[in-house]
């Protein structure tokens, strides 16, 4: 609290304290404006996401985290109007010519509530592949094993792959959902509060899993849990009222924020 005055002299928004090489950027947003009907839900959010890192999106409820995340793989199609550029490896995917299904395959998504399909665990994981014409049993078996191992549930479910996925516990189900997303070989993984429905133990396991996955994927995760963001992520974006307020290395955001608002939020004095 003693350095309030100093913080107040800083700019109201602060984006980046790092300048990755072009080749290191997996995703980038430019001049993004997202509208629900006539309501502007997100603007001022020119962000870059670095390859093989975990970026946490934090901010109060209603600040637009989910809105932002969902536009990264065009899940807002038909729900919100998204203006501006969303670059995926340099290609603007926010244009009508782009095949949204291929985009979503490459930029996978895991949701807040575990949502296994009413199918067996095996089919949950392989379903999207089968729809894309992969029917070779050996390939599918291999994918199931690899992805479930990546998602760190293999040991728990390997003997019951034909069991309905609806019978799994929340934590197991969420990790099967991660495996399901990995099965189509994306390179970006978007997660919207993936641990909010899980108990502490499952949450911890999930974090370990994500830390492992970072080696192969670019991960962007929305979380309400400050500790989680601090523990898990390399970079953190703080959103408020539909704007990206501060974007920096996680350590800096949590220890030496450059904007007063961020400081208030991460120290719990917000509102």
């Amino acid at each position, binding site marked *: 609290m003693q350095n309030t005055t100093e913080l107040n002299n800083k700019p109201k928004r602060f984006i980046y304290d790092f300048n990755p090489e072009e080749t290191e950027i997996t995703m980038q947003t430019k001049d993004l404006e997202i509208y629900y009907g006539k309501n502007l839900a997100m603007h001022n959010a020119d962000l870059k996401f670095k390859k093989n890192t975990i970026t946490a999106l934090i901010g109060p409820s209603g600040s637009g985290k989910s809105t932002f995340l969902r536009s990264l*793989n065009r899940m807002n199609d038909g729900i919100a109007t998204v203006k501006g550029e969303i670059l995926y490896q340099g290609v603007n995917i926010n244009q009508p010519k782009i095949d949204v299904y291929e985009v*979503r395959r490459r930029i996978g*998504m*895991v949701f807040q509530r575990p*949502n296994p399909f009413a199918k067996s665990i095996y089919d949950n994981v392989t379903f*999207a592949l089968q729809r894309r014409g992969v029917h070779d049993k050996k390939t599918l078996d291999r994918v199931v094993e690899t992805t479930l191992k990546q998602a760190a549930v293999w040991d728990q479910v390997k003997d019951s792959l034909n069991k309905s996925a609806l019978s799994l516990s929340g934590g197991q189900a969420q990790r099967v959902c991660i495996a399901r997303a990995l099965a*189509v070989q994306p390179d970006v993984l978007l997660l919207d509060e993936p641990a909010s429905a899980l108990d502490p133990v499952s949450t911890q396991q999930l974090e370990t899993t994500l830390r492992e996955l970072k080696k192969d994927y670019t991960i962007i995760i929305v979380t309400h849990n400050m500790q989680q963001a601090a523990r898990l992520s390399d970079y953190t974006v703080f959103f408020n009222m539909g704007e990206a307020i501060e974007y920096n290395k996680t350590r800096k955001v949590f220890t030496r924020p450059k904007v007063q608002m961020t400081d208030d939020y991460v120290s719990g004095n917000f509102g």
Partner: protein
Amino acid sequence: MNRTQKQSRFAIACLKAVAGFVVLILAFLIGYIFITGLPNVSWHFLTSPAKAFNAGGGIWIQLFNSFYLLVLAMIISLPIALGAAIYLNEYATDNWFTAAIKTSIEILSSLPSVVVGLFGFLLFVVQFNYGFSILSGALTLTIFNLPLLTRNIEDSLANVSDDQRQGGLGLGLSKYETIIHIVVPASLPGIISGIILCSGRVFGEAAALIYTAGQSAPALNFMDWNPFNIDSPLSPLRPAETLAVHIWKINSEGIMPDLTQVSSGSAAVLVLAILIFNLSARFVGRKVFERMTSVK
């Protein structure tokens, strides 16, 4: 106790009496049908053909016709109802077109079944020249069945959590794939209950059939399952009086000496079949659900 309290007590007692009376009516109906009817139901009754002038006839052919028509009508109406329900629940946006479609489905569902039957008569029997036949009957029953089946399926689809749809879309699947392969399977318990419930209604329907499937049940050759032969049970172009139509027909103009026995027996069989449909609708739906979520 003051006046208003007394009044309240009295009124509530009256309500109890009314509710009791309604239960009595049903008890009487069911009791009457089964007590007068079931003694006339025997294996012979269920498995022998009807007789127009002599005693001792059964309802075998009518029973067979009822089930055959039901199955055909369901086979035809299911894909249509499913498609319509999918569009209404998953694609339709709030505009005049959707409103028009919803209104026309409401109109169809409240149309008297005689009117549906007469339309079927005009279109299938006369215009398409299918005559009084299984085919005309099944197509007419389809029209009769569509609105309710569509609404049932629509409700079951609406009960599936949006998370499931998001999950499918998030994997890069199309909306339609998501619906067909994820949402529909997830709503299967509800859809199956809906189908069985609609089956009960179709099974008991007569007014839509008397001028489409006809009012006669010619003898069938149960050794011949080639649908192209006219006396094959599967032949779609033969006239086919159903059990429900049979009850109406013999009560209106039947002259067999055991008329009362035959009609009460038929009514008992019909109600029993519908009871089974209604009870199994809940049961089967629940079983399918358990099966889907079970720890096998």
